[in-house]
């Protein structure tokens, strides 16, 4: 009742829905960096959208199946091979003991999700099971998976006869050119227009916590530090260097740099696909439009996938 990690890759963690309601005690969201790709993979495997799955980052990975189950792969990986045979993403696949799943590297985009119909056993805390790397809690012993780790499944058995294909309209396009819609943050001043003028490149300092953006400096020296205040995934801070810092799912709950902008909730799942070198064009929108976009997106997803959540 398990799956064995033959090649763990750069950073493979167990991730599902984020932790909620604990930011006041410093608990980050954690959870899947790209909640939309996670939800699709889980739907294909007959699971609820926020169920725990494998989140794979950039490099290739190999898994060995040790019990019959259904699997699905959705994300930026270049290819999927089951026992060496090319297998498309976006559809349910039955696998059997001894089968190997080779998930290719990402040539564009950053993250891929492997969902299984069997329930993956993960460490539970604060009502969630995602991996919180900073606190070394949740997921698989609070850490990224290593070669030869064995991840166990619960005894509950699999979802049964599911055979699904992602509708074309819902298939994300994985690229290294992103448009992220933003609204002004509390310390925006006039800086939102500044950061929307030209695209930024994601710097090499990029992780699930956040990423430095390289480009024309915005308002250098205009702000220093400020008294710490709440930040969220998708908050864009402006440190004194003038290089914006975009927060990811593992971001701290509070920060002392000006919060100049916020990526709208409907677009935050795209942050999970940013990698060093990705180009990001920010486009300013309004909070009213942001709400409409979010509700439209959620309603489209829900109509096709059932109960889905974005964060």
């Amino acid at each position, binding site marked *: 009742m398990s799956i064995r990690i033959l090649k763990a890759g750069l950073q493979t963690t167990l991730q599902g829905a984020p932790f909620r309601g604990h930011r006041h005690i410093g608990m980050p969201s954690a959870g899947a960096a790209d909640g939309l790709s996670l939800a699709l993979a889980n739907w294909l495997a007959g699971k609820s959208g926020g169920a725990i799955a494998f989140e794979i980052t950039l490099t290739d990975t190999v898994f060995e199946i040790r019990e019959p189950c259904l699997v699905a792969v959705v994300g930026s990986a270049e290819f999927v091979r089951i026992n060496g045979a090319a297998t498309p993403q976006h559809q349910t696949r039955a696998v059997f003991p001894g089968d190997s799943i080779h998930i290719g590297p990402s040539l564009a985009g950053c993250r891929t999700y492997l969902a299984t119909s069997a329930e993956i056993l993960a460490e539970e805390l604060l009502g969630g099971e995602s991996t919180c790397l900073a606190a070394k809690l949740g997921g698989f012993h609070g850490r990224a998976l290593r070669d030869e780790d064995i991840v166990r499944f619960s005894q509950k058995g699999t979802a049964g006869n599911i055979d699904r294909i992602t509708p074309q309209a819902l298939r994300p396009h994985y690229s290294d050119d992103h448009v992220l819609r933003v609204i002004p943050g509390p310390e925006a001043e006039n800086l939102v227009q500044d950061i929307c003028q030209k695209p930024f490149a994601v710097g090499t300092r990029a992780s699930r916590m956040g990423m430095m953006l390289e480009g024309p400096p915005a308002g250098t020296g205009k702000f220093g530090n400020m008294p710490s205040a709440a930040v969220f995934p998708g908050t864009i801070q402006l440190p004194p260097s003038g290089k914006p810092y975009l927060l990811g799912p593992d971001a*701290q709950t509070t920060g002392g740099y000006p919060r100049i902008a916020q990526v709208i909730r409907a677009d935050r799942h795209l942050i999970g696909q940013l990698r060093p070198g990705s180009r990001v064009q920010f486009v300013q929108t309004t909070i009213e439009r942001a709400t409409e976009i979010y509700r439209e997106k959620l309603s489209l997803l829900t109509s096709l996938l059932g109960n889905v959540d974005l964060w």
Partner: protein
Amino acid sequence: MAKNAPMIHVCDDWISIALADRESILAAQSAFAASGQWTEIVPGMDSITVQFDPGLLSPDEAASLARQQLNGATSVNRASIPMATIPVCYDGDFAPDLAFVAGRIGIEADRFPEWHSTRAQQVAMLGFMPGFAYLDSPDPCPAIGRLADPRQLVHAGSIGIIGRQSCIYSFDSPGGWPIIGRTPLHLFDPKQEHPALLAAGQTVRFETISRQTFDRWPEAAAK
């Protein structure tokens, strides 16, 4: 609306409210929590932020609710919040910056534990890492500032001070605060009903313990 209504900034799923003093932040936190309408309620040093579900509330609706709840907020009786006593060992192994900090304050290093443990302290907020506590003190203290070169590893339980503000590290992590002691207590334990040892608004008293007491502390032994 009161003429000194706080400044509110509305994003698509969170609202940040500037509040000048700790009492107002605590009162707002209590009112927001009582409403049950927010997915997150996060106190800051001079602000409080609430997050909402934009599928259920529009930003306008959320802002109206926040304003109503702020208007109805009543001050929290500080006496009802339990005080926390934090044992601290000032042994040299745990306090690499104690001499530097004592020098900035202008006292002898061996007087530092007494100076530190007699100061009034309260938890301003938690953040940075699960259970990591920011404390502030109304008592005067010269600015000490952060280390020029942050440490790669600060041990869990370490107590940092930069002036009126102090902090307690909840996990081993990098850090830039000058470190003057260590507590054997766990600041974050997800197995507890309240995983964070401290909460915003609590009064904290530091109590000096010896190295021997620290080493025999049951929680330290479990580390």
